């Protein structure tokens, strides 16, 4: 059945796509606000939404600094994950020997609950940003590699035959035909990696750091400043969205290039 919001009328679309979720959101926040005030809950346990908003006052610059640190490291981890994922996908796609040697091991490696290894990265690499970025790459490159490999194998069969018939080398075929055909798959992996990179950086910051939003959360919590914890979480959402926006934008560009419009 066609969902109601697809009715096509101006009123129907606006109502379902914008007005209804907004009202629902406000109602939930209102209930939260009311419950906290009516039952006199301590702000250390659970601050009310309006109190959270008010506590942004005075900590804006500090939060911006920590957001910048987390955002910068997440971005770096994201880009490196994409590069490492794509390079590994190329190598495993080009060589049957490499594929047979590494692929099953990489899959087993994925079964490890990697979050448990986060403290080890601090142990191995220290408390500098290198350890957090390494950990973030460690949990992010695999989705890119997997998606890219499946994309590289999905190129049109006749396009591959055409390449063979005109004497294209393996590398020429890889770059001029398989890679463009793999792009939609790559972006699926890159979007997962964008989310995972931010999670990886913040996880590292929760364990050991001297700046970043994860560090800020730990410090605010240990001081009993729960409203500030929530402020940091809101900022973290913005940082996460900003990182996620990169593959989304790049995908839109790639699609325009494909379609030529």
């Amino acid at each position, binding site marked *: 059945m066609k969902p109601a919001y697809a009715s096509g009328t101006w009123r129907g679309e606006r109502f379902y796509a914008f007005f209804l979720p907004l009202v629902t959101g406000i109602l939930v926040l209102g209930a939260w606000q009311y419950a906290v005030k009516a039952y006199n809950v301590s702000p250390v346990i659970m601050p009310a939404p309006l109190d959270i908003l008010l506590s942004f006052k005075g900590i804006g610059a500090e939060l911006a600094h920590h957001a910048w640190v987390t955002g910068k490291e997440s971005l770096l981890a994201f880009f490196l994950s994409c590069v490492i994922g794509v390079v590994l996908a190329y190598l495993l796609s080009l060589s049957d020997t490499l594929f047979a040697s590494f692929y099953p091991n990489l899959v087993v490696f994925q079964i490890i609950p990697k979050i448990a290894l986060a403290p080890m990265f601090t142990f191995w690499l220290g408390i500098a940003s290198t350890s957090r970025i390494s950990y973030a790459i460690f949990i992010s490159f695999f989705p890119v590699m997997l998606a890219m490999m499946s994309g590289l194998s999905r190129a049109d069969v006749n*396009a591959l035959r055409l390449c063979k018939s005109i004497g294209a080398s393996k590398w020429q075929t890889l770059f*001029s035909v398989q890679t463009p055909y793999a792009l939609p798959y790559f972006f699926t992996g890159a979007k997962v990696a964008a989310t995972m990179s931010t999670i990886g950086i913040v996880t590292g910051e929760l364990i050991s750091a001297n700046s970043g939003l994860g560090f800020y959360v730990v410090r605010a919590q240990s001081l009993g400043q729960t409203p500030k914890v929530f402020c940091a979480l809101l900022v973290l959402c913005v940082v996460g969205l900003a990182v996620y926006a990169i593959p989304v934008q790049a995908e839109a560009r790639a699609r325009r290039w494909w379609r*030529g419009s």
Partner: protein
Amino acid sequence: MAGFIDVQNVRKVYTTGGGDIEAVSGASFSVEEGEFVAILGPSGCGKSTLLMMAAGLESISSGQIDIASTPMKGPRTSVGIMFQDNTLLPWKTVLENILFPVRIQRRPIEEYRQRAMDLIETVGLRGFADKKPHQLSGGMKQRVSICRALVTDPDILLMDEPFSALDAMTRDEMNDALLSIWDRYRKTALFVTHSIREAVYLSDRVLVMTRRPATVVADIKIPFPRPRSRTIGETPEFNEICARLRGMIDRERLPGSAELAA
């Protein structure tokens, strides 16, 4: 002696879990330089496999294919191929798609650009050089794929049921377009099809292939002079040839009918 393309007792056997499958058994024929030959047969009779072996895209199990008196080993770059679907790269423009073999073979692009534009003109796509494939109709895409097959001026043109995915009217148009291109460039051509009328209309000779045995069972000369126009399709002679070919294919295809006819 031998023709330009010389197929000698070629077999193709696929080894599967359930035993060997013989896709082509002992096919022999030859094609003269500048000749247009159609390979006609029902689907699944191995005619595409035979063409792919001639293109060097499939290995030959036994026998030999000589091109210009040289045995084939792997793909030969002086062959233009058209596949059943147009196989255009969706992110490239018409001109870029046509120049794709030029770029892959590292030939000087500038020297071939004019030839590509001439080909675009010949197939009636003037003004479409900068369009992307999704902006073209099915017939137009196949026209681009003809241009791509011819851009490097190969000496052989191999076509694997290139128009079978098109509707009947577009297909007639494409046949005319192919004839006019071929009259102009005169390549040695092998054309695989399961349409009897298409085979007769386009070619100098029709080779009939059947499933059992998967080999060439007849070699029919088509006597119409060139350039041809669609009106030959209404002549009694044309229809007589078609009926004869139809008879050969039916006889081989119906189980048990070969014995009945004998």
